[in-house]
């Protein structure tokens, strides 16, 4: 028997123990109460109202829509998927040709910060229009805040300004809700005797029923509630309660609260394509959605005629971009790749705009924000099936390149990897703009060789991927006359690296290659510095380490200084096309052109040039174009893909942190935390065995 010790618990486990209730796919399952009616309606509507043509493609091809939903929030959402938002999500998924799953979590800030941002789900139903930090769809209903009181109470209240309110006992559904401010503005603080807010701590099955129960029981004379909950629970006591919208709809008194809220669907920032698809689906299934709201007795504000679907737009050459981007301001677990992801997205945007402004192509880059490999796979499937993407670009963050390659293979589209260096991904159908581990290894070996390093010790994470990288490095340095004299295998978040450093010292290594992820590299560098300077420490250019943000953080956390790094691109390159590109990027976005911005820029540029040259994005022609070349991508010499490995061969750069450089929000400060040492050009890359 083992004692109860285990490895450091990884983030996914943690979020699962933090109140998350495991996701239960409920694909195709509709609430019983609506099943009969809805089933008939869906069958007919599915025939009459096909969604986008691509969604109705070959049989069995579909994508997955995962909705974050509250397990205890009737009438909006419930674990049995009987809430009206659950039902509407089902209608939209059906319209869009998606299978539907729910990720159950209480609808609070953590749902956004942990689940949506973590990539466990892609969508949150029922958020107010413009809710931060989300992107929101068009509104599918507007509900008012309402007064609810007993029909036999002998009162008739509709207005906040009704003097009778000061004589009544008022109960609030939640403290701090918008009408609360309106009541306070009217000096009614003393009339508010209770709030029935459900708490996250002790949820009952129907927490939102409490206010209506209190009104029924006479505990309060009038309840102030969000319309849907009051409407739903009042409807269960026909004739006993009055539910009326609070007037005026927009409170003319400070703080001018809006007492009618247009409700939308929220997606991650950067998921414009998904937002647009959902908005279109809302339009197409407007009547069905309204029927559900009616069924649940949701008080509605007449929002005018149903929105009309837009005119069919022109044919586009769609490129799908998938990567992790920032949603919200707080740093949370799973946000490790957001900085490089935002840089890459900006690079892709820049390339698209350059081509459009040149009139070179009708290229349309469609973006998806994918924080995890699972989200990347869902996004890629969606972009291909729903948006008609013919090329997929991405590969930042653990497992995302492999996920995109899988989808590309399954759907018969091309894909370009802009972030992953894994040797195992090479020599497949994927084109690699991102340098391979071979390229990085060769550059590191060359650079260190110049400095006289002949004996390496490699410290690497204990998994297959890093094992392959280490193996590649060993083969490369052997060609340069140096050798790897020892290797240490460590777990992620290993507490101490003393044994590894000691082993390197005892082996007489002159340099240690640090094959660790970004967080572990910081601890490693600090611990190595504390042991003395006798060995050269060479951090490997793991994806999240290739940004000015990371260099600044690593420098600050290691006051004794951090070593130089090999990178794919450098924002201070100041000659020729590279200077132009850096100037264009930094002046447009106001931040350094981090290396992955170049990778995304290069990938989109290549696809755009192919489209212009071949008149389309047919996979065979695209591949032929890419394999042809050479391509001008601002790296000082024309570049070409190796025909076997499909690796773009390219020069790399060495940058050195500037000791004591202040970090700040200004572009000059961010650029200034590191400086260019020089380029390392390693022309030959091993082909495929």
């Amino acid at each position, binding site marked *: *028997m083992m004692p109860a*010790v285990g490895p*450091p618990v990884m*983030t996914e*486990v943690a979020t699962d123990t933090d109140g998350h209730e495991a996701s239960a796919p409920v694909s195709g399952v509709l609430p019983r109460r609506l099943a009969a009616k809805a089933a008939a309606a869906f069958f007919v509507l599915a025939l009459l109202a096909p969604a986008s043509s691509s969604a109705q493609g070959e049989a069995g091809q579909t994508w997955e829509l995962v909705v974050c939903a509250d397990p205890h929030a009737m009438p909006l959402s419930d674990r049995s998927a009987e809430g009206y938002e659950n039902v509407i999500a089902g209608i939209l998924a059906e319209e869009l040709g998606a299978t539907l799953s729910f990720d159950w979590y209480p609808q609070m800030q953590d749902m956004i910060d942990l689940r949506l941002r973590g990539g466990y789900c892609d969508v949150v139903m029922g958020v107010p229009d413009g809710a931060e930090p989300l992107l929101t769809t068009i509104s599918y209903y507007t509900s008012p805040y309402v007064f609810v009181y007993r029909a036999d109470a002998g009162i008739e209240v509709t207005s906040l300004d009704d003097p009778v309110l000061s004589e009544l006992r008022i109960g609030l559904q939640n403290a701090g809700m918008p009408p609360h401010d309106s009541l306070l503005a009217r000096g009614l603080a003393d009339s508010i005797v209770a709030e029935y807010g459900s708490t996250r701590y002790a949820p009952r099955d129907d927490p939102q029923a409490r206010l209506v129960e209190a009104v029924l029981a006479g505990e309060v004379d009038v309840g102030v509630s969000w319309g849907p909950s009051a409407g739903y629970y009042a409807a269960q006591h026909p004739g006993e309660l009055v539910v009326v919208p609070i007037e005026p709809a927009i409170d003319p008194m400070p703080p001018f609260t809006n007492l009618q809220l247009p409700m939308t669907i929220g997606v991650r920032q950067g998921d414009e394509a998904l937002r647009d698809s959902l908005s279109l689906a809302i339009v197409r299934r407007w009547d069905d959605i309204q029927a559900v709201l009616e069924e649940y007795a949701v008080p509605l504000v007449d929002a005018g005629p149903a929105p009309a679907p837009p005119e069919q737009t022109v044919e586009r050459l769609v490129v799908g971009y998938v990567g992790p981007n920032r949603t919200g301001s707080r740093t949370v677990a799973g946000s490790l790749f957001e900085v490089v992801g935002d840089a890459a997205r900006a690079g892709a945007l820049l390339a698209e705009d350059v081509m459009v402004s040149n009139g070179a192509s009708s290229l349309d880059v469609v973006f998806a924000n994918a924080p995890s490999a699972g989200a990347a796979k869902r996004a890629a499937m969606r972009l291909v099936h729903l948006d008609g993407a013919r090329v997929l670009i991405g590969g930042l963050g653990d497992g995302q390149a492999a996920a995109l390659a899988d989808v590309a293979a399954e759907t018969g589209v091309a894909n370009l990897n802009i972030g992953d260096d894994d040797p195992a991904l090479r020599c497949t159908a994927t084109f690699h703009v991102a340098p391979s581990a071979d390229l990085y290894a060769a550059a590191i070996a060359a650079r260190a060789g110049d400095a006289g390093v002949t004996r390496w010790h490699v410290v690497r994470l204990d998994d297959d991927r890093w094992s392959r990288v280490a193996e590649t490095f060993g083969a490369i340095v052997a060609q340069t006359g140096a050798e790897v004299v020892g290797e240490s295998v460590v777990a992620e978040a290993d507490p101490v690296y003393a044994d590894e450093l000691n082993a390197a010292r005892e082996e007489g290594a002159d340099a240690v290659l640090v094959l660790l992820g970004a967080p572990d590299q910081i601890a490693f560098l600090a611990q190595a510095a504390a042991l003395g300077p006798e060995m050269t420490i060479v951090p490997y250019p793991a994806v999240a380490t290739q940004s000015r943000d990371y260099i600044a*953080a690593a420098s600050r956390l290691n006051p004794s200084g951090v070593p130089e790094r090999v990178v794919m691109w450098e924002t201070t390159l100041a000659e020729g096309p590279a200077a132009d590109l850096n100037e264009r990027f930094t002046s447009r976005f106001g931040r350094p052109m981090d290396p992955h911005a170049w990778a995304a820029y290069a990938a989109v540029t290549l696809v755009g040039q192919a489209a212009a040259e071949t008149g389309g994005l047919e996979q065979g022609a695209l591949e032929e174009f890419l394999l042809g070349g050479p391509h001008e991508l601002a790296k000082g010499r024309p570049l070409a893909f190796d025909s076997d490995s499909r690796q773009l061969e390219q020069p790399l750069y060495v940058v050195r942190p500037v000791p004591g450089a202040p970090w700040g929000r200004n572009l000059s400060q961010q650029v200034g935390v590191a400086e260019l040492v020089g380029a390392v050009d390693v022309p030959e890359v091993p082909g495929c065995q």
Partner: protein
Amino acid sequence: MRATRTITALTAAACLAVGGMALANDELLQLQEDPGQWVMPNGSYAALNYSELDQINTENVDQLQVAWTFQTGVLDSHEGAPLVVGDTMYLVTPKPSVLYAIDLNEPGVVKWALAVDMPELEQALAVACCGGQTRGVSYADGMLYFNSLDGQLFGVDAETGEIVWQKQIADLSIGETTTLAPLIVHDHLITGIAGGEYSVRGWVAAYDLKTGDEVWKMYNTGPNEEMGITDSFAPFYEDDKVEEPGVSTWWRDSWEIGGGSVWGWFSYDPELDWFYYSTGNCSPGNPDYRRDPATAPGYFEYPNKYCASLLARDATTGELMWAYTLTPQDPWDLDEPGPNILVDLEIDGETVPALIKAARNGFFYVFDRQTGELLEEPWMHSPVTWATGFDMETGRPIMDPEREVYTDVITEGLCPLIAATNWENQAYNPDTGLVYFSERNRCGDWRAFAGEYVPGESYRLRETVESYLGPDGNGDWGNRLVGIDPVTGEQAWGIEAMGSDNKPVFTTAGNLVFQGGQLGEFRAIDATTGEVLWQFMAGADFSNSPMTYLGPDGKQYVAVISSSGPGRLGVEVDAEPDEEDRYRRAGSTLYVFTLPDDVAGVTPDQTATPAGAEGAEDDGGAGGEAEDGGGAAGGAAGGEAGDDAGAAGDDAGGAGDDAGGGAAGDDGGSDGY
């Protein structure tokens, strides 16, 4: 300090040899004097969080090295420091509360592990305010005692890890949980409950060490007989010399759900036989429920005794000896879980038995611990706006009318917001005469609102409207570690940072302060000058106090657990633009540091148990094959632990699958590098 473990161990053994005759208290009184061990939270009854060990000192601390590590596999904040009794280290994890006994002869090897059954864990987590916390384990007479979050109290055989008795002491259905480390005095232990967010009625209770039977239970509010107020009650100030203070200072029967929980630290004066603690916030957070609306705020008509207060009780009978209300009526959620440090101070040429407190409400207090008299006018250790000073005749703070709280009115510019200091351990160093603590600069706007009390449901009735740094929102620091002279109030030094997490502080006779920093580094600081002399980058947060002990090899070790909370690696809203927390590492690791043998002045010949040291070196020799070394250590431990350890393996958080990864000792022996 050259005290050897052999002698102290004999002392302890002699004490035990008397059999049942010696009170656990007597044993602890002796053990706490032995700097080689660390037998209770904060190191001593006086709660100094100070060690007399000085093998590690300002001269050599820069050569401190990792001796061994131990990963608990729990992703939550560890808030309890380990204990060392004899040759064994004991530590208890946050939920799911696994108690470990680690053999110091073979560093990192688990003697036994006990994963207690927590059938109500889910409910406990639902009502606990701040994660699956426990603040540690206590020891007496061969037994260990601790509370699990779900209100259970355990008495465990320290040798075998077997549960001798257990009982449910808190009522989860009304929001009571248990998070503190018990105080052990005489033949009973004293513990209390958390739950200020649920309007619990706070209490402390004593339980028999042998049986767990309740000895007495005293509430912090209510009628005299339930509060232990007898003729012995002799408070210093007139405000407390009132009829039934636990009732008469409350509006109507609001004392019944008035808060005053007990979730921090205890201290104890053996000569007086009194123990000290301070209580949690008054409940609900909205004071309109606790005072007469006609005379509001009426701070001194309805001061709501004794929540947000300091209490001294007889440790034998539980009777209240004196009490003082720190924040009258507490409209600002100013719990006082922090330590009450007992130290004899020289004030105006006289040595006085003092109790010093850097309070959460922002004031620094110096009391005569015998009488409850304020020996000095309390001064602001961080920005305070709720009061402007003190009336030393009455002992009352002079309240600022700008900061009054009424239902549905926004109170602006409140400092401190929630907490200046909090539960985090503070430390007093007799050599420097300085007290060390970590404080925040957080201010904000505040609102109270109306609500209905439902047992077991959150009943705070207050919210933060806005939060900012400094009284005007322009503060240039978020957190500050300070060394302060408690007599003069003079700040000897301070280290400011932007993050606003408080961190526990610990000090030693090596003229050192140890503390986890804001950036994931563990650091040793010159206790006199505040200069950072050494640091180790763990890359994760530190939420528990460091401690120190003498190993069986005669070397001084410093231990601390690094851990990060679940799910979120939080970054403060005003963190630097590069948001370095993005690169914070996950996991919980006990780090144990020591000096190289030659620097420590110890040779293998001198060590008490050379076998243990060799074993450690063998582990270190595994070098790059750290996983194997760890696995072997773990396997051995499992064999000894038997069924209990097996249960632990199953329960300890889904982490058990990877046999090697989390096991101890994977980073070398005592001279690993």
